[in-house]
């Protein structure tokens, strides 16, 4: 490790992840000293596990969705820490810590505001064909609506510089936040890079993750948000 990671804060939204959380946080904390877990009203002992592993824990007293959790993490990093970089990392173990590290380095070197991960430039393990199709459709949709030249749009692994945290506000509480975040990049005048990563679909992440049909919810949330913005 050449550079200190003291200026990096990792944000991990979590909801009932007790099964895998410990392993994920152990590997994460072995590399990144500052990890903030946002517990989205879990009914299991996820917050206790996170605390024991040495992460800062923020608790949503009621479940508000992953988008809301991420924004809570962003607000915390913005107002309560002086971190320059904020990593978003899923709690189900589908991301690699070394990928996150590589993205922080890439962002540092490039001077851009946001580093996005792409599983379609990198590799995936155990992804179903249907999920691949739904994700590709999401990519197509986002490339058109957000006017970004990206190859993966619903990847939970990202690195944001403080400049990006200051100008992005996620208002869509559920799963449409990934598109919402991307749509905010161009209007805010932020620069971005895309880094190839590996995504691993485990038994756990497949069972826990979103059903493909939930893409309808994302489209609905985005459409109503758009109608409201234009009215």
């Amino acid at each position, binding site marked *: *490790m*050449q550079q200190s990671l003291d200026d990096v804060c990792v944000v991990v939204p979590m909801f009932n992840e007790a099964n895998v959380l410990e392993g994920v946080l152990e590997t994460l904390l072995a590399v990144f000293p500052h990890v903030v877990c946002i517990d989205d009203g879990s009914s299991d002992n996820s917050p206790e596990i996170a605390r024991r592993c040495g*992460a800062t824990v923020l608790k949503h*007293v009621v479940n508000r969705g992953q988008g809301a959790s991420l924004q*809570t993490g962003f607000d*915390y990093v913005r107002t309560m820490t002086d971190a320059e970089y904020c990593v978003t990392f899923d709690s189900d173990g589908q991301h690699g810590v070394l990928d996150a590290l590589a993205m922080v380095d890439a962002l540092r070197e490039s001077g851009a505001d946001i580093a996005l991960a792409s599983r379609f430039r990198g590799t995936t393990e155990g992804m179903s064909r249907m999920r691949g199709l739904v994700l590709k459709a999401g990519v197509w949709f986002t490339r058109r609506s957000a006017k970004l030249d990206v190859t993966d749009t619903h990847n939970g692994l990202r690195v944001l510089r403080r400049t990006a945290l200051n100008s992005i506000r996620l208002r869509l509480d559920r799963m449409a936040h990934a598109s919402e975040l991307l749509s905010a990049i161009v209007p805010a005048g932020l620069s971005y890079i895309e880094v190839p990563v590996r995504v691993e679909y485990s038994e756990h992440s497949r069972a826990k993750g979103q059903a493909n049909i939930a893409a309808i919810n994302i489209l609905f949330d985005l459409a109503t948000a758009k109608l409201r913005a234009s009215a």
Partner: protein
Amino acid sequence: MIIKVLLIAGIAGAGLFASRIPGAGTGLALRRLLGAGLVIVAAVSVAFPEITNWAANLVGVGQGSNLVLYGLVVAFLFAVTALYQRISHLEGQLTQLTRAIAILSADKAEPRTELREPVQ
């Protein structure tokens, strides 16, 4: 037929109402006006049942009961969209409240003191 114009206008109105956030007080005022109108119409049509037939013929509907049904459908659409708006507004407020509590009561990790691999 006049009724078609009226109904489509009503449905479109409900759709428009759903897609915009009314200014402070506007939504509430609209709901109260509609509610009051509904009460008056209901009371009058109970007192004088033949009036619904008369109104139905006026707009080109065969029977008064059909006109009442159409009116109910449009009123239902408005009620649902108004409720939906109110709920999404409340959900936004709930998120902000939840976020504020989460940040204020953050359980901070102590600085890690154990030996880490030396920085080259």
